[in-house]
């Protein structure tokens, strides 16, 4: 399975790729070895492309009988040491949540690409975007645990952030989500593929630790209080906890009868590393009176809106969240500290992230949500609000 015949990397340079394909290529560059999927609009192109590409690099792509089987096969493959992922959409995600909980419990690393579509239900305009799963994946499943979610905004980022997602999965051993959507997945854009040496330098490999008798699960260092996250266990080697593989484990990395300690470890191992995980883009924020906070597709229109508004002399800035979960509380708090108004353009009606911002902003700062479902924001939609509040 480890054959590397040079087909793993696309040739260096510019390629015109579809979003789902760019994501797939990013995964293969990151060393994807197993993909279990089930066709669902709008993520189907991912499994189609991977079915063609993965056997070329000695990996395995399986179209399973349903979403439940595909995510469980992904977990199984990850348990024996293959980097694995799945791609699906909202209805598939809701089926898979049970297993996502199990993966979080056992600290099995895997990457999940969610190409979001209009929901709820499985009918309707399924080829239109709707950032509706962003709330579901915060605690994707039963039990409490922390996931990492990344929100790309173009095909280049779908490629790059997929590699980052695999690295996060290997490092923090939690479910990592790439929150794509129907427009982004079907968008064709130029993707600049870096030389393979550069990609290889970035990729964190799945390998055995030097000491295979070491503790397998994350634990809290008694002296420093830091969380140490060891490499993921690999079944079929000596680095496998045998009978303890399925048990909830506490801050010592050993089975515990106290669920509270287990929950604390589950969440704090990610939260204590939030500075390394949080990625944001601060665009003209320094003197901004009006702050736009966005993630995913609305960022593209927000950039344009900021540019036009700045030309008109309105002091507006943009905070772009690349990492959506864990929510970067401190960064957002700092960014909206001096803001007069916060504008949150989101591709959903509820405003899931707006609610999070409400939690960290000053109580007096007003927050304006611009919700859209099934369609893109036009820069004018945001500009109209900016001009109104700047009056």
């Amino acid at each position: 399975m480890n054959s590397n015949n040079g087909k793993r990397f696309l040739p260096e340079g510019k390629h015109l790729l579809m979003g789902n394909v760019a994501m797939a290529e990013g995964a293969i560059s990151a060393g994807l070895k197993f993909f279990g999927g089930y066709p669902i609009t709008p993520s189907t192109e991912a499994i189609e492309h991977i079915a063609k590409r993965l056997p070329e690099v000695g990996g395995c792509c399986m179209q399973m009988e349903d979403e439940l089987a595909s995510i469980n096969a992904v977990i199984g493959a990850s348990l024996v040491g293959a980097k694995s992922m799945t791609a699906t959409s909202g209805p598939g995600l809701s089926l898979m949540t049970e297993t996502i909980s199990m993966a979080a419990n056992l600290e099995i690393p895997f990457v999940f690409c969610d190409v979001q579509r209009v929901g709820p239900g499985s009918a309707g305009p399924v080829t239109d975007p709707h950032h509706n799963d962003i709330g579901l994946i915060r605690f994707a499943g039963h039990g409490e645990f922390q996931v990492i979610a990344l929100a790309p905004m173009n095909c280049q980022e779908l490629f790059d952030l997929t590699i980052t997602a695999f690295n996060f999965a290997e490092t923090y051993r939690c479910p990592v989500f790439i929150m794509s959507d129907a427009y982004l997945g079907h968008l064709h854009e130029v993707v600049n593929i870096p030389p393979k040496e550069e990609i290889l330098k970035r990729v964190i490999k799945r390998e055995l630790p030097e000491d295979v008798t070491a503790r397998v699960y994350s634990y809290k260092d008694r002296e420093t209080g830091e969380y140490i996250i060891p490499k993921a266990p690999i079944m079929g080697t000596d680095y496998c906890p045998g009978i303890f593989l399925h048990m909830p484990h506490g801050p010592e990395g050993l089975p515990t009868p106290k669920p509270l300690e287990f929950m604390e470890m589950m969440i704090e191992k990610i939260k204590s590393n939030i500075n390394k995980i949080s990625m944001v883009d601060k665009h003209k924020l320094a003197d901004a009176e009006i702050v736009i906070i966005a993630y995913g597709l609305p960022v593209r229109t927000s950039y344009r809106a900021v540019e036009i508004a700045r030309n008109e002399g309105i002091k507006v800035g943009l905070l772009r969240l690349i990492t959506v979960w864990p929510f970067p509380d401190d960064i957002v708090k700092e960014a909206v500290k001096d803001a007069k108004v916060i504008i949150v353009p989101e591709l959903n009606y509820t405003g899931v992230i707006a609610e999070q911002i409400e939690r960290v902003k000053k109580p007096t700062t007003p927050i304006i949500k611009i919700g859209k479902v099934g369609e893109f924001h036009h820069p004018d939609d945001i500009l109209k609000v900016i001009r109104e509040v700047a009056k």
Partner: protein
Amino acid sequence: MSDIAPMFPNEKPEHPYLKQSYGGKIFGNFASLFCGGCGYGIIGQIFTRVFEDEKLDPKLHPTIIGIGCYSQILLLVHEASQKVLALHGRAPAVATGMKMANPRMKPIIFSGDGDCLGIGGNHFIHICRRNVDCLIMIFNNSIYAMTGGQGAPTTLYGAKSTTTPYTMFENRSDGVKLALAAGAPYVARTTVAHPRTLMKYFRKALKHKGTSVIEIITPCVTYFGRKNLDSLGAEYLGGKGEKMDTGGRMIDWIKRNSVRINQAKFMTEEELFNKYVIGEFRYEPKPEYSGEYAKIQKIAMGGK
């Protein structure tokens, strides 16, 4: 008293398999977590025996355990085997992922009747259809015992359970017929009352490359036996039965209620109603999934 796990230290014989059993290794005279009369101890012992006698490589034979009473079997079976507790019904899917990520492995799946024929029926059908190299053991005790005796897809017609207090009226599902229809190349059924046959089938399945399905009829005294009469399966005789409230009575009932496949050919539908047909139903090796996928990989890589 079984000699693999005696109740009292002074009874303890030096048994070679006891050292290999996880419970035995840690607790010495550890008996088991199962109720009196349960058949899972027998299965755990047989697994340990075969694992030890065949000198199976624990790294290449991961054990994937579903959800049911038998989930506790991981305390009884060979300590070296690497075990993973899958979600309810999803063990075949986990095994598929493992096998495809490391084709040298041969996963062994412990699954129950509710696990494999109820919630995980779809995964069971498709692992048989794909012919992924693995061994599926379905422990059929005709009841959902872990949750307290609810009706299962395999509960016999006319039996009582906590969710069918006025007798079961649904048709029962037959794991062997399902596996045969789905195309599993090796299908057999036996009972814990026939342990040597079970060992024989187990060894054969280990040597067979492809999906092997072995359904094992086991007794559940606590939730099935105490509620039901031993006239189940012999309705055509019209007699009144007795409660099967001991392990002995249940094993007796299982023996009486199972019919060998060669005898079953000469019996009528009515006589076979509510009976367990035991034996080997099919042994026709055919191309295995991971081997076929390796060919696809070769084509994709540009070879021939």
